Structure formats: structure tokens, C-alpha cells
């Protein structure tokens, strides 16, 4: 049977998890570490202790900003940023739900927009996201949205790519090939 470490290593971005020497450079560099249930160094230790449920249901990786500061500084080439995305991806694929972080819903709205238009329609994506989480949260940032709208930066109409039908076809085929 595959261990959790094997799953992580087989996901793009998770390859180098065993190289970690637990120095803590990643946690010390991360601008969001104080928001996470487990800071990056601890999360890596938990992966290696095979604490799959705890890791994949945590909010830690969902706070990653992709600033790559940990990756630039890691002395062992672990690439904790890519590892965070690998964990997000595993959590999503395996149906883990995280507590107290809205990022997964926003990412779903974002990817949904790509799948239907070929490109991200930012206005549609944001509306979908706020309706699916907390419409009242939208009120707090309404002033930002309004300014963006007034300055023509949130067009209501989506650009649809001509051959956007390619995308579902390519994805479908890729899934078939991968499961062979």
C-alpha cells in the first residue's frame, strides 16, 4: 500500500519532501506562518510522521501566497511552495475539507471560469466566489469592487476563447491517459 509520503512524492511539487532537515528557514520566512494551524516546517514533519488526515484537513497550505521566499531560502531544495500546492491538490482530489479558510472556494470559482471561458473572467469569478461563501463579506470589499468597476477594470462580459472546446476535450483525454 502507498504511504502518504509516497503520495506526496508522486505529486508534482512534492518530490523533495524527504530532503528536509527541519531547520525552520521556511517557517521563519513565511509571511503567513502565523495564520497557519501548522507552520511549514511542522507540516513537513507531520507528512513524514504519516499524519495524513491532520495534514490534508489543515488550513496551512491554503494560506500559501506563492511568494516563494521559503523556496528561495531553503538550503536543501525542498521547494515548500510547490509542496504546499501539491498538498492542496491532494486534499482537493481526496475530498478533504479545510476549516476556516476561504481560499479553496475562491480557487474553485477561478478554475470554473477557466473551464467555461478558457480565460478567467474576474468579475464573474468574484461574484461566484462571494455568493458561494459569504455574500456579506462582499460588502466589506464593495468599495474596492466599485472603484475597480468605475475604472473599467472589471468588465461584466467574459472574453470567450474561440477554441475553448479544446480544453474539456484535452482534459478528458489526459485523464484517460493517466489512468491507463
Amino acid at each position, binding site marked *: 500500500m502507498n504511504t502518504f509520503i509516497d503520495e506526496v512524492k508522486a505529486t*508534482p511539487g512534492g518530490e523533495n519532501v524527504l530532503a528536509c532537515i527541519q531547520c525552520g528557514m521556511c517557517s521563519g520566512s513565511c509571511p503567513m506562518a502565523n495564520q497557519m494551524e501548522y507552520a511549514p516546517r511542522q507540516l513537513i514533519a507531520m507528512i513524514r510522521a504519516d499524519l495524513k488526515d491532520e495534514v490534508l484537513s489543515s488550513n496551512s497550505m491554503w494560506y500559501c501566497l506563492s511568494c516563494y521566499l521559503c523556496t528561495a531560502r531553503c538550503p536543501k531544495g525542498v521547494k515548500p511552495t510547490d509542496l504546499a500546492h501539491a498538498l492542496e*491538490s491532494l486534499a*482537493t482530489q481526496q475530498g478533504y475539507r479545510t476549516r476556516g479558510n476561504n481560499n479553496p*472556494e*475562491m480557487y474553485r470559482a477561478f478554475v470554473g471560469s477557466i473551464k467555461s471561458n478558457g*480565460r478567467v473572467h474576474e468579475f464573474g469569478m468574484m461574484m461566484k466566489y462571494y455568493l458561494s461563501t459569504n455574500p456579506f463579506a462582499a460588502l466589506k470589499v464593495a468599495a474596492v469592487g466599485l472603484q475597480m468597476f468605475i475604472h473599467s*477594470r472589471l*468588465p461584466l462580459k467574459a472574453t470567450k476563447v474561440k477554441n475553448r472546446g479544446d480544453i474539456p476535450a484535452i482534459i478528458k483525454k*489526459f485523464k484517460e491517459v493517466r489512468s491507463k
Partner: protein
Amino acid sequence: MKYYTYFPGCSSESTALGMSISLEAIAGPLDMKLAEMEDWTCCGSTPYGSLDEMESLVIAARNLALAEKIGLDMVTPCSSCYVTLNKANHHLKEHPQLMAQVNEALAVAKMQYKGSVKVRHIVDVLYTDIKPESIAAKVKQKLAGLKVAAYSGCQLVRPDYGFDHVEFPDKLDELVRCLGAEAVNFPLKSRCCGSSLSISETDKVLGLMEKLFANAAENGAQCFTTPCPLCQTNLDAYQSLVNAKFGTHYNLPVFFISQLIGVALGMDEKSLGLDKNIVSPRPVLRQLSEVKSGT
């Protein structure tokens, strides 16, 4: 004239309209031909890889395949597209078996990716190919006296595609200086603005922006410049929220580097999309023209 395949990225059509408008305006005068790829889609960006790391490679690869057919360097002005496309490109080249699977999938749309595309950032092109000294030679209105915080942000320099120092980059500063402006000391120049978590976890990232404003302001900056669509949107559109939360009074315009270059080339507000900026750049620009006319 230098020729490139241009990958604008989704934000170029909406939140970063000022970026695409200004880039188009300065390309000709700087002898760049940016030919937009036909039928490009989103690169996938961080969200796609976060929900499905494998599938995101195919989304990026479709765009790489389209660029490969043209054969020129693929240039994007978006830092997130730059990282996403580079990451997929490197990963596929390092994993030939995966590349073969991706190609089997692309074949349903009669596409193929061999792995030959070079993905570059527009700042790299401006610095390396066009060069600060030839930009300087074309400057019509020197931005003398303008104090700018040159904000590279994260993904122009990290993880590391070899363009500039990963923590203390200086090439954006050089582009600012070649326009006659002053690039102020700005130690946080490559620290994160909060990225797209400004949408999903707004309250938790406003503090990151506040640090950037504070650091720029204490070093005398009158404005920011950045190449990154998300950095520009966060610092520009969320500045009022930062002020409300922290009781501050920042009023710092955030120029795209292409807008700032355009101003120095003597172009007008409208053709540089400066009317799309939320924190108005007019007071700063007015001061420039007063210096010039000696009033």
C-alpha cells in the same frame, strides 16, 4: 526591431487594463513587436495547480504548444503567468514520460509540445534586449525629481528563473533610473503584497500591504512602480482599505513600469491607461511638468 510572441494573461483584459494599454503604446517606440498569440487561454495560475497539480500542466502546455508553433520567445507581462508557464515548462522537460502523456492529450486538439519554448518576462526583455541605455536615449520628458519605490514583487524574481537576485533585485530599479527618476531605497521590494488572498482572506493580508506602504513612504517614495498585475491591483485598489484598517493616510499612486516608461517617452495619460489607476497619478505627474517648465 525585435520580435516576440506575446502572452498577455487574463488580467490584461480586466484588472490590469492599464498594463496592456501602456505596453502596447510603448512597444513600437522601443522597437519591440509583441505579436499576441491567437487563442491563448489562462495559464492556470496558482489556483489550477492547487486544485489539480497534474491537470494544470496540460492547461499550461496547451499555451506552450501554441507558442512553439510560432517559434519566438514567449513573453508575458504577468508575473504569475511567467512562473506558472516556466514551472510547467521545466517540469515537463524533466519528466519525459509526463510530457508524452500531455502530448497524447494535446493531440485531440491537433497540438503537440516538444519543449523548445523560452518563457520570458517583459521586464527581462526591457532590461536585457531593449536595454536601459537605449530607453534612456528615447526619453522625451525626464522624470527628474520623481522618487519611486521599484516594487519587483515576488514572482518576477522567485522561485528563480535566473533574471535577477531572488531577494534584492535591482533591474527594475535600473529601468526606473534610466527614465531620470530616483529609485529610492526599498528593502521590502520583493516581499509579498498578499497575492490573490486579497479576495479570499482580505483582512489577513492587508497588514502585508501596510508594511510595503510604510517601507516605501519612510524612504521618501512618492509612488510605486511594479510590473505585476496582482501587485498593482492590491496596492492600488486596496490602499483605501489599508488606510481604514490601520488609520494611515497613504496616497501613493502605483504605476505599471510600462506606464512610467510611457510617461517618460512623452505619451499622454489616456494612451497609457493612466485613467484606470485608482489612486490618481495626476498630482505626481503635475509636479513633474511643473519642474520641467520651471514653475
